[in-house]
């Protein structure tokens, strides 16, 4: 009899203790979480003058294990510089490993604190360069 009651009492003891502790549940969305400094959220492209810093070196699509990045390079007709004419991330495929950031030789791609990525339509998960580039 005693053997049966003892775990039950122990359990209730823990429950009782928690009644007097600060709750861990976050009242999201009214309450916001504190995001760690190395959090890997939605990507963003750093800006350099009028376009993103990306030079279309293709290292991120090469290293990406989920194959979610599509880059296309183009040549600036005046300066002959290489830039990304297309930089798309299919966020549904992304596994947020951060390899793209690690691979980037020009510090163009970074990961932000944005984690609220839910959407209604599949198309809305395809992020284009325009959506990803930092606003001026």
């Amino acid at each position, binding site marked *: 009899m005693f053997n049966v009651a003892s775990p039950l009492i122990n359990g209730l003891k823990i429950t009782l203790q928690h009644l007097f502790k600060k709750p861990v549940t976050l009242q999201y969305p009214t309450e916001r979480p504190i995001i760690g400094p190395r959090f890997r959220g939605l990507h963003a492209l750093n800006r350099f003058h009028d376009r993103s810093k990306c*030079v279309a070196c293709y*290292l991120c699509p*090469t290293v990406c294990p989920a194959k979610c990045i599509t880059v296309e*390079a*183009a*040549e600036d007709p005046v300066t*002959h510089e290489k830039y990304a004419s297309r930089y798309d991330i299919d966020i549904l495929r992304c596994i947020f490993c951060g390899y793209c950031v690690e691979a980037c*030789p020009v510090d163009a791609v970074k990961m932000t604190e944005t984690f609220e990525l839910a959407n209604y339509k599949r198309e809305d998960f395809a992020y284009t360069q325009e959506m990803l580039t930092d606003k001026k």
Partner: protein
Amino acid sequence: MVNLTIDDKQVTVAKDATIYDAAKSAGIKIPILCHDKKLHPFGGCRMCLVEVEQMKGRLIPACTTPVTEGMIIRTSNVEIIKARKLVLELLLLKHPVDCPVCDAAGDCDLQNLTYEYGVSKNPLQDEKFKWEIDYINPLIERDMNRCVHCGKCARICDEIVSFGAYSFINRGIDAKMGTAFDGPLDCEFCGSCVSVCPVGALLSRPFKFKARWWAMQKVKSVCSYCGTGCQLTLGVKDNKVLTTIYDENQGFHNGQLCTRGRWGYQFVNSEKRLTTPLIRKGNVLVEATWDEALALVTTKLREAKGGVAALATPRLTNEELYLFKKFITEGVGSQSIDHSAGYAHEALTSAAFKGLGEASSPSVIGDIQKSDLLLVVKTDAYETHPVIGFEINLGVKRQGVNLRLISDKKGKLSRLPGAQTLVHLPGSEVFLFNTLANIIVTEKLADEAAVTVAGYDALVKSLAVYTVEKGALLTGLSAEEITTLAREYASAKKALILLPLGLAYPGHNAPLAQSLLNLAILTGKIGKEGSGILFMAEKNNSQGAVDMGIVPGPGGKNGADIINGCASGEIKALYIAGENPVVSYPDRKRIEAALDKVGFLVVQDLFLTETAAKAHVVLPACSFAEKEGTFTSVGRNVQKVTRAIKPVGSSRSDFEIFNKLYAEFTGNPPYATPQSVFGEIADSVPGYGGLTWSKLGSDGFIRPVSNTLRFVPVEAAVTVSQPGKFALLTGSALNHSGTLSQYGEGPMMVCPEGYVEFGRDDVKKLGLLEGDKVVVTSAAGSVTLLAKLGKRLTTGVLFAPYHFGANSINTVASGDPVTWVSVAKAK
């Protein structure tokens, strides 16, 4: 042979080998930047430093040091690695290290070695170069800031291409790879320099930023332009052929390509490609399904029974040509089938067949460098088959081969060391060669065995009229020149004749080839290594088309008669597979009128060509990159073509189309694959016996010949010059091949439109400037073209390339060896 020890391994190599070669043969890798197996050793980069026991105290460059008996070599130790690292640090000191935006990244020797040797930081510091980048020419981008001064570009341009576009200029730290007067690059744009550049200093502009090297699939295939049969590596990504990739281990040419092979690949994914079948409804061609189009073709060909003819392009694979022949002869029941207008293959089908017993060249491309004397008929051999031109360059410059050019104009080959060009009057070739043969007979220089060859007496009898005096008069050469040439040719131990063929060379027909064969047989040159005659057929599979019997059968019409039959209404339906007669056959107006008259015209092509625009049904076919099969090159090399991409749009390979029609018309089951047709070819086509798909391997297989020699006397038709008129010679431009290269961006960037070339004196006489427009008029028609000023033509001789659909020179050209034209400045 020399014995030596490399890294404790016993190695035996030839005595002219270098340490680098010896190590390579033993499978030991020595890093290099400035060395290339095709070029003379340079010893510029010092990456290949090794330690030799007998020469201790300093490190020895492996690429320039010949081996000696008993050498003990170390290719890697602490000191060597330190020295190599220093070399890399010194190179990286000036190198911009802009790998993220450099197209060479991934295929860059400097990058790979830096990674391999772990050079992650540089103790040295200096400013980078600030050279201006050459963006002016359309094909090659020159960024001398990235240059590592290996000198490979200058060396390949000198040694193999023999153009000499580059040289080191300036001294010390200011030294750089420069062009003439440090101006923009203006050369023949073969791109050999781009292919050997170890870094990204020289890059392909059409491919710029298109893809990363590692992201491309590399597919080995065979070039589909000229008949040389160069092997290619195609860079493929996302079902698109993006570039050609250099592979120094490919083919007899060691990966060396010409301007059109390297830059002319864009036709494969051209936006102009046909993607659906088209059927004529009234005056317009409307899109249709394959079922509709093929049903219409079937009905109409059946209706026209007895009046069907076919023309095929020798760009198709052997399997397709074989199947086409079967479909036309067995299925449709017509013997009127031909290619290349009926005359461009005559040298093989008529002359070689009569004189040698087999319609192919007795010699192979490898004979060029093994010969003692090359007799090249027309300097155009370089323009029609540029990579064979490189072989001639190498033969002359490296092997000391004597070069004699018999031509109606000078050309690039005329500038080779020791080359002699005999510039004769246009159209007098046959007379000249008959004269040479006559001299050989009268001076008793002929080979002893020649007397026993069938037809000897008849030949000697026929040659009597070709006296030196008359020859000198008719050819415009001096009697001495002719006699010397005859003696040189007859006395040379090994002598090889090269004759380019093609639609633009109506004079290179059966009589000319026959006179050359008589000459070669007379001097006993056939059947020996480095000797004989090489007919350089124009298209990638011209030899294959001849082998597969794309020539009229018994009672059938040849190319010229098919066109005449169309005009007379005798031919009711014409099936054209890939040919573009409107542009490429002489006398365009007549061809157009003939094709307009045909009751039913089917054209199967990649593009809506000028000919396809006249068709009742247009069937979209596939390019070489989309199909499997074999091509037979000049010199009889049977090589495999690999499928690199999926068919564009709903286009089908010629094989698939013919297979369907063949099954429909004959009631036989269709063939399963091109390989099964190849099996049948091996069983039935002479020379292909015993060949299997796997036997072809990566280098192909040179199919054998068996020659039965015979003299066939030929009469020289005398070309009478017309006073006050110019002799117009048509030919091939270096950047183009047939009419296909018009759809490649690269060739069109350098040579976008037709022109007519004038000699120096005529320019003065007519008061012309480069780029002036001139009207060229002949009895056949008239055309307005750009004038180009050349130095290679003699007075009264004009040259024009034939490739272009717009302002095509074939409007003027009559199809005779020489067309007489009058020229006026356009108003």
